[in-house]
């Protein structure tokens, strides 16, 4: 059954989908999404627009459909952590990053085309310094040299982007 994320409450999370993946205690991921829709407007729009995220071991992306509704299939994968996040072309900013900071296994982040991503956003990406491998900051008009100086903290990252 498809439901809009805006109606999520902690109680409704109790309804589970049984699937083939091993059952485990609630993961940070589901907590993350509950936070997302309850806390920040940035992230509500993130889920309702064309934002995607991908789990470890899965090769398909979770994305919202044309009507902006988000499927609940991700609840099948409670114990896995998010590996790749694509928040391109959204209004994510420094405060919105608050919702992603708990993702310790993040490998790819794409913020291409985000108008609100500036140098301060980049300076906060040190949180992912151990795991981030790919960072896409193309078409972000507010980034400057000062922000690129902050990216030295990311050790394994292969960055690509253009103004």
């Amino acid at each position, binding site marked *: 059954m498809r439901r809009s994320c805006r109606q999520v409450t902690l109680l409704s999370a109790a309804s589970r989908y049984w699937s083939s993946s091993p059952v485990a205690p609630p993961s940070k991921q589901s907590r993350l999404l509950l936070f997302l829709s309850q806390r920040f407007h940035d992230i509500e729009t993130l889920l309702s627009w064309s934002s995607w995220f991908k789990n470890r071991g899965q090769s398909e992306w979770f994305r919202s459909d044309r009507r902006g509704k988000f499927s609940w299939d991700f609840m099948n994968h409670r114990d896995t952590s998010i590996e790749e996040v694509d928040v391109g072309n959204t209004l994510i900013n420094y405060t919105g990053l608050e919702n992603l900071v708990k993702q310790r296994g993040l490998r790819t982040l794409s913020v291409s085309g985000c108008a609100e991503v500036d140098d301060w956003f980049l300076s906060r990406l040190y949180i992912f310094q151990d795991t981030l491998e790919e960072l896409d900051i193309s078409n972000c008009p507010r980034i*400057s040299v*000062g922000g690129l100086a902050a990216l030295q*903290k990311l050790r394994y990252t292969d960055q690509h982007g253009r103004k």
Partner: protein
Amino acid sequence: MWLECVSSSCKRKALMLWTGPTSGISSLFKAFREKAADAMPGSDWTPFEKNSSLPPERADIVIVGGGVVGWSIAYWLKQKEMIRDGVRVLVVERDPTYSQASTVLSAGGIRQQFSLPENIHLSMASADFMRNINEHLSVLNDDPVDLQFNHSGYLFLASEKVAHIMEENYSTQRYAGAKVSLLSPTQLKEKCPWINTDGVVLASYGLENEGWFDPWMLLNAFRRKAISMGVYQCFGEVTGFSYTTNTMTTAEGDKVDFRRIKYANVQMPNSLEYQPVECAIVVNAAGALSGKVAEMMGIGLGPKDTISGIPLPVEPRKRFIYVVHCPNGPGLDTPFLVDYSGVYFRREGLGGNYIAGMSPEEEEEPETNNLEVDHQFFQNIWPHLAHRVPAFECLKVKSAWAGFYDYNTFDQNGIVGMHPLVNNMFFATGFSGHGLQHSPAIGRAMAELILDGGFKTLDLSAFSFKRIMTKEPILERNIV
């Protein structure tokens, strides 16, 4: 005189009411109201022609010093006033070219790596301000503020002797919420392969909200916004104060003079013309010259063992910054590196230039009557630079400049608050090299102190003048 003026204009306007078109009535009333307001005491109207570069005759708050701290206080005062034109603020600056101002000659760094929680919180609040600077300081139809903030972080290196201090500071900083990390020599070498870790036992690296920015942009942003909010700016020098004295006797029978400033005399540049500005509060934000301004009020000129005999312990100290060029240097990734020998350097621009400096020993303090650079002093810096970064063995000094610290000779930390004997003089000075990075938060704290009567967001009572009276310094451990 004003009665006649009002009644004659009344009669004229009454006549015009009957004859003129009806759409002119409200403008007539408006003009009448303005004229009546001018006639009231406290307005700016004078029968004589006034030189417009003079400050207004009356102001609620006079801020002595138009540096970044002074303008930050002016902005926050206007930001916090409850009603429009609630306070009239005047900023008096001596030098319109800012040729000797500490603000613009600064290296422009901001860091959270201090040992006093107050300093850490001041830096964090200032960084938050700068992150959202356009929400605070943008002016309609004008360009947005671009501080050119480089988020490179500060890297402090500690030798064996001082490593324990660095560890204690690290826990204080973490507790206060600053994002700092400690690095061992191996981790340091991995992160910065161009460093020579010889002698380094521990390193402390700021992960967020640290770096450097353009101080002139911040100063102008504050100034532009404050002027758009109605702050008066005057280029002139405060040469003296007129005050009233109230002598009271203590329980032991000693006499104490309480002074209240009534007028601040502002003298025009290159002229004998001066304007006594009647004011309620004076804020001393004069930076390196704050000691002189305090002396004008007699602070420090009283008998030796009394409160009035304690001077404001702020004096100018000259510091040099050298611009060097090194093509094989560390590059874009260079943090603002501060070595335990006192030498610091950071990248400047993208052309392989770096700026470097060092705090001299007490005995070697240069004289402060001018801003001439001592190029010989660089010979003290170079060996430490080359030892720490082998690429700097071949560098070329391109240029240099000097600036003043508003150096607090007592404990090298700011003095914020009222003077105990001069009831309407507030200090915001003595930051000894940290004034720029703390200026947004200091401005807010001073505005809270003046308008709300006490500190609301950050408690800076540790920085009050009281510690100078009781001779209890609060020292930063490991300062530069």
